[in-house]
């Protein structure tokens, strides 16, 4: 018996891992996985590394941008070039400080429309998979972030928190195929669900063929899903198509927020208060 286990230890351990994965997957999909000991530990382990890597990336980007800016002055003589480089670097610092200041000012203005419990967080990592669209923020349960809270910016909806560790949280982005946000068309008040799609980008689903939907229509949150406050900008309709068959229209949406260009977000719990500006 022992010899059998020893001989087939690798395939047997593979089978064990597969069964364990299926159990975790099934429990997680049904929301029954309450106490996951490994996930928070891994997040705790990887968080400082992610923050360090994020800082390094930001630094490299800054250096690259400074370099590109300086490249335009190659023809000038050495003294002026050095001086310009210094001034340019200084200017970049000021511009960056001004941009950050402006961004935070917008965030503060926007925050005054939200419940007092909203939390400011930075995006520190993105999804490791091409099939799922998510990101990691640097605030967790210790800061008041809870599963199910919405993540927004002054420009609009980013996504919702699907998992929270002590010092970080995973955010499922609006563009993920598994996300779904109850929205309404601002002009006609027609309601539908905005979700990600691997095929067509972000789409607006379940809008009847008879509804009057036009390219350029703005989509706002309806507030009925219990996750997002009413009136937050979700995106703009870019394409409307009616197939020969089918009950609904095929509508493509340009999200209001590009997560790749977002650095700071607000984590908000849904309270019954309109965020319409």
């Amino acid at each position, binding site marked *: 018996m022992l010899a059998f286990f020893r001989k087939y230890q*690798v395939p047997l351990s593979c089978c064990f891992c597969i069964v364990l*994965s299926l159990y975790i997957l099934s429990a997680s999909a049904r929301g029954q996985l309450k106490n996951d000991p490994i996930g928070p530990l891994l997040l705790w382990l990887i968080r400082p590394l992610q923050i360090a890597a994020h800082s390094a990336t930001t630094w490299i980007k800054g250096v690259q941008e400074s370099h590109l800016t300086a490249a335009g002055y190659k023809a000038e003589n050495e003294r002026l070039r050095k001086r310009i480089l210094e001034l340019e670097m200084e200017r970049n610092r000021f511009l960056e400080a001004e941009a950050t200041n402006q961004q935070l000012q917008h965030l503060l203005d926007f925050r005054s429309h939200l419940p007092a419990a909203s939390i400011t967080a930075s995006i520190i*990592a993105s999804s490791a998979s091409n099939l799922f669209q998510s990101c990691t923020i640097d605030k967790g349960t210790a800061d008041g972030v809870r599963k199910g809270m919405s993540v927004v910016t002054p420009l609009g909806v980013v996504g919702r928190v699907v998992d929270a560790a002590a010092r970080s949280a995973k955010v499922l982005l609006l563009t993920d*195929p598994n996300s779904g946000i109850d929205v309404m068309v601002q002009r006609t008040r027609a309601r539908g669900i905005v979700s990600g*799609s691997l095929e067509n980008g972000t789409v607006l689903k379940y809008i009847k063929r008879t509804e009057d939907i036009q390219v350029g229509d703005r989509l706002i949150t309806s507030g009925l899903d219990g996750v997002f406050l009413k009136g937050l900008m979700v995106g703009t309709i870019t394409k409307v198509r009616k197939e020969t068959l089918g009950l609904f229209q095929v509508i493509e949406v340009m999200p209001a927020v590009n997560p790749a260009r977002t650095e700071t977000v607000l984590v908000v719990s849904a309270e019954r208060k309109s965020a319409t500006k």
Partner: protein
Amino acid sequence: MKLSLLLFAIGLLLVLLQTTFLHFFPLVPDLILVLCVYWGLHHPTVGAVLASFVLGYSVDVVSSPVLGVNALAMSLVFLSVYLSSRSIWLHNHLVSAIVVFLAALVKGVALALASAIFLSSEGFWIAALRYILLEALVAALLAPFVFSLLRRGQTYVEKVQVPGLYY
């Protein structure tokens, strides 16, 4: 032991790379898959099986909507590579690229299947197919380079003797 720890540390580093630096590319190269295939071909131990599972799980923790999808896919990849490695007699760049390509397909199908069953995303299959093929191609192209790096690291670690450590 020493080698297993090194390979696992490399795995965690790859998870970090995939969530930060590599995200600037239009398609994130699946280096974790390449590492698991390497383990399956050249380091088939119980430790490597568990490491593949944990790496898949860590990808789940940082990026999947539900836990266990990538852990399942990585365990399946390891098992299929391990079983097929018994029939592979030739080890060169082309063979490693082909094995990685096929393993990426196994992973992609496992991911799509698990997502279709447990997440019930509409139209996931057709759209996922393009990503699966692209990911498999990128992983296969990178495989020879990553394999040679890992082999060099393995050779180096095997040469270095540390008193008190048995492996």
